[in-house]
Structures are given as structure tokens and as C-alpha cells.
């Protein structure tokens, strides 16, 4: 294992354009599909599932999974992080990066395995014994599934999974049987949101066994117009069918979004321009910005970049800023380990980080 002390040396993370490597988007889908995520859930047949497992067994089970990772031929690509050894701030950063749930981030006796590039993680002892998670920018479900599938195949050699021919992987939640595969994508849908078409998209997706929810809030008027589309059905379809269906629907939604953007530009150009340039002005000049304000302005700016109203800003920079403008990430910049920190200082630092990342932006 390489020397990895927590997330302390998260390389280049203060420079959004560099740190965005893991979430870089391809040019054509960058305007709508922000990132993709794939998760495979697995349990070991020999142990009760998390929540019902006694503490001593839990430790044994965890170490058995970690041993399987250590035996991988490419074991040096992974770092093992015992959460109990991490400062609270770094646990919260794991949560802010969508690697673990908030509840998991404060649990005891937990460990995760993280790839060097931070794009693949093995989460041990969440709802299931092991969840392999992969994240990547843009429409990347296929490469993500291929990577996780390969890892899973290597791990199964030393981990006897709970599995049956009829029900596939026997996971904790009945909604997660079969493939144990949950795939999702983060979509930026400002035009569908503005036009109210998002409600129809949500209904149609539900009929197709998919769900759409707000990224920053469960409600439909999601902050920053960021939505997560995910598969609900994990059984009865092969892994490739699941991600194929999801990918097709996401591409369709992106098509609707782009057409609606064009329509809005024809009918309400000044409204759009006002929203975009107002956000640019705010992020370029303000000295304090709250998280909420930042997300909304970054969303408007992203729309402006997609419509050619703003130039010299990479969508991947805007994606990175979404993560970097979260509280724990800012506390890391401030090298403040304190649980309570001056909120004015946070807002000031957030404004500064964003301002510096956008110095080259100009009207398109």
C-alpha cells in the first residue's frame, strides 16, 4: 500500500481545473450530463448483514474483505482508510465527495478502500458488506461498469458472496437484489426546469423503472437545476441492459434539454442573458457567497457556457467548484480542523476560490 494519510494530499485539489480530471466531461455531453456513478452491492454468505452483525464478527468480516483487496495483483493502486483514524473533517470530505453517506461517515469501525485516482472505492459495512463505487465525469457508465466488474471478478475469488441463481446477489435491501447494480447520472437541466417540463420527465422516467430527483434536495425545484437519474430495478435485467437503458434515457433527456434551451434562447433571450450575466457578475465580484448562492450562480454560469454566452470557462471547472465550494472542502483550505468555524470566513473563502477559478472568463 502506498503512503496515504487520509485525504491530506488530494493532489491539485486547490486548482479546480486540475482536480476536475476525475470528473472531466467530453465536449458533446458536457452541457447536460455532468457525471456518472455506478455501484455494485455484495455480501458475504458467512456473516450476518450490517445492522444485524455482532461487533466481533463485523471486524472479522471487514478484515476479510480488506485482505481480499490486499491480495489483488494491483493492490498498490488502492489505499485502505480506517475511518476511526481519520479526523472528522476528512470524514466529512468523503461525504461531500459522494463517496459515503452522511450516516456512514460518522459510524465507528468502518473502513473504505480508495483507488489512487479517487475514482473507485470499496465501501465496507454500509448497508451491505461491500459496495464497489465508481465515479467519472460525463456519460461514462460503460467504462465504469467495466472497471467495477473487473474488480468484482477479482475479489470474488477470495470472497464467497451470498448469491443464488434465481435472485442473483443476495443484498440487504430487497430493492437491490439481482445485479445489485445502481447506476446514476448527474444531469444539469435548467431549461426543462424553467419550462416546467421536468415534471413530465419525472413521470415518464418512473414508468420506465428509473427515478429522477434533485441532487441538492429531494424536491423537484432542485437547487442549481442538478438532477440525479438512476435505475430503480436491479433484477430481471442484465447489467448492460440496465446501464444501456439509463444511458439512452439520459441522452434523450439531454436532447430535450438542449432543444428547450434553444427555444428559450429564441423566445426569452434577454431573460436568459440576465440570469447568466448576473451570476457571472456575482461570482466575479462578490466578497462573500453562501453555498446555496454559489450553487445557483454556478448553475447559471454553466448554462451560459453551454449557450456560448460565456467563454474561457471549462464545464469541468464548474463541476469541480460544485464540490470545492462545500463547507468541509473550504475548511481544508483554511487548514481548520475545528468543528465550528466562522461562517463569514467560510463565505469569504468560497467567494475567493470561485473568483480565482473564473479569472479568465469572458463574454462569448
Amino acid at each position, binding site marked *: 500500500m502506498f503512503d496515504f494519510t487520509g485525504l491530506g494530499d488530494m493532489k491539485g485539489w486547490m486548482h479546480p481545473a486540475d482536480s476536475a480530471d476525475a470528473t472531466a466531461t467530453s465536449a458533446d455531453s458536457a452541457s447536460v450530463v455532468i457525471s456518472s456513478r455506478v455501484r455494485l452491492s455484495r455480501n458475504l454468505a458467512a456473516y450476518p448483514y450490517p445492522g444485524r452483525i455482532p461487533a466481533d464478527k463485523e471486524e472479522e468480516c471487514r478484515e476479510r474483505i480488506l485482505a481480499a483487496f490486499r491480495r489483488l495483483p494491483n493492490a498498490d493502486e488502492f489505499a485502505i482508510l480506517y475511518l476511526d483514524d481519520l479526523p472528522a473533517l476528512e470524514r466529512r470530505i468523503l461525504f461531500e465527495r459522494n463517496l459515503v453517506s452522511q450516516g456512514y461517515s460518522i459510524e465507528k469501525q468502518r473502513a473504505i478502500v480508495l483507488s489512487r485516482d479517487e475514482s473507485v472505492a470499496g465501501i465496507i459495512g454500509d448497508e451491505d458488506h461491500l459496495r464497489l463505487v465508481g465515479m467519472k465525469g460525463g456519460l461514462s457508465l460503460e467504462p465504469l461498469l467495466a472497471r467495477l466488474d473487473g474488480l468484482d471478478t477479482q475479489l470474488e475469488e477470495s470472497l464467497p458472496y451470498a448469491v443464488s441463481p434465481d435472485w442473483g446477489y443476495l443484498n440487504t435491501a*430487497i430493492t437491490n437484489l439481482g445485479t445489485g447494480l445502481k447506476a446514476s447520472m448527474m444531469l444539469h437541466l435548467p431549461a426543462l426546469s424553467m419550462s416546467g417540463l421536468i415534471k413530465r420527465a419525472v413521470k415518464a422516467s418512473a414508468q420506465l423503472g428509473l427515478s429522477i430527483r434533485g441532487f441538492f434536495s429531494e424536491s423537484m425545484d432542485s437547487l442549481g437545476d442538478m438532477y440525479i437519474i438512476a435505475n430503480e430495478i436491479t433484477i430481471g*435485467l*442484465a447489467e448492460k441492459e440496465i446501464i444501456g437503458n439509463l444511458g439512452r434515457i439520459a441522452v434523450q433527456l439531454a436532447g430535450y434539454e438542449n432543444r428547450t434551451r434553444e427555444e428559450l434562447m429564441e423566445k426569452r433571450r434577454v431573460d436568459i442573458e440576465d440570469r447568466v450575466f448576473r451570476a457571472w457578475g456575482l461570482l466575479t465580484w462578490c466578497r462573500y457567497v453562501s453555498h446555496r448562492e454559489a450553487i445557483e450562480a454556478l448553475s447559471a454560469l454553466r448554462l451560459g457556457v453551454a449557450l456560448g454566452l460565456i467563454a474561457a470557462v471549462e464545464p469541468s471547472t464548474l463541476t469541480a467548484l460544485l464540490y470545492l465550494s462545500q463547507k468541509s472542502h473550504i475548511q481544508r483550505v483554511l487548514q481548520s480542523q475545528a468543528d465550528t468555524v466562522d461562517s463569514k470566513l467560510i463565505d469569504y473563502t468560497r467567494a475567493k476560490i470561485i473568483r480565482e477559478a473564473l479569472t479568465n472568463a469572458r463574454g462569448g
Partner: protein
Amino acid sequence: MGVATKCEICGLKDAVIHIRQIQKDLVHELHICEECAQEKGLIREEDSELPIANLLSGLLEGKDVTGALEVKDACPKCGLKAVEFRKQGKLGCAECFEAFDKDIRAILSQMAARPRHTGKLPHTLSVEHAASAEGEGLREELREAVEREDYEQAARIRDKLREMEPNV
């Protein structure tokens, strides 16, 4: 008919009961012997017609498919109670899946269009599974065809099963 048709259930005795379904210009036939018909509870004096669906279901596994396993009150291994499982939809260990088999089947059939795994399996299991998977799939299709009373399709699947497994 020169040679007597054999019973399609036991394959031993001559069939004395012939069920013929005519659909447009297609004719589907099922032939069974008296003993098998009695054993399946298909012949009773008050029976004015034969419940073909039951008959075909019986053919699937040689047992009444409606009488499934009993649901246990709790999982014998981890102690998860049936009520807890029903409330949360979460299992406590691998053995819960046997203990709550019937419940799980019922929930899955409402949740998913095809409540049967068709994806990846660990290598050791998939080799063994591949051999029986096709036959299982066909039996499932046969069951579905019978349920929706599509006997034309049912007969076709039955023939396919026979080709695969000559002893059936």
C-alpha cells in the same frame, strides 16, 4: 389412430383423455391417462370441464405450484423477524432468503417485470447454473403462458423442453 397415444404426464400408459383447443386454424392437443388425471384431481364427477391451467402447472414440477413454502416467523440464523422484514424490506443474512422465500417472491413479482436474475453470477456458480438456466427459463415461460391461458404458446414451449430434456 393406429398407435395409441401415450399419456403426456407419465409417458407410460395410453392416454384416454384428450384435450383439444382450436384457435383459428391451429389445433393444440394434450393427451393424458386416466390415472394421471385422477392423481391430479382432474377427474371428478362434478367436473364439467377440465381445468387445463392446473394440469399444465402440475406438469411443470409435479406439484401444485400454488401451495408454496410456509413463511417462518423469524430467520433461524440471524433471528430477523418476518414483521421486521416486511416493514423495512431488508434482510438480515443470506439465510433470510430461504426463511422469507414466499414473501420475497410476492414482493419481487410486484416490483419487477421479470423477478428473476439474468445478470452476472460469480464464476463458480455461473458454470453450474448455465446448464440448467435455459430449461428454467423455459419452464418459467411455460408457467406464464399457462397463466395467461395461451395454450398455443404453452404447447410450443413444452415441445422445446422435450427436445432439450428427452426424459421429461
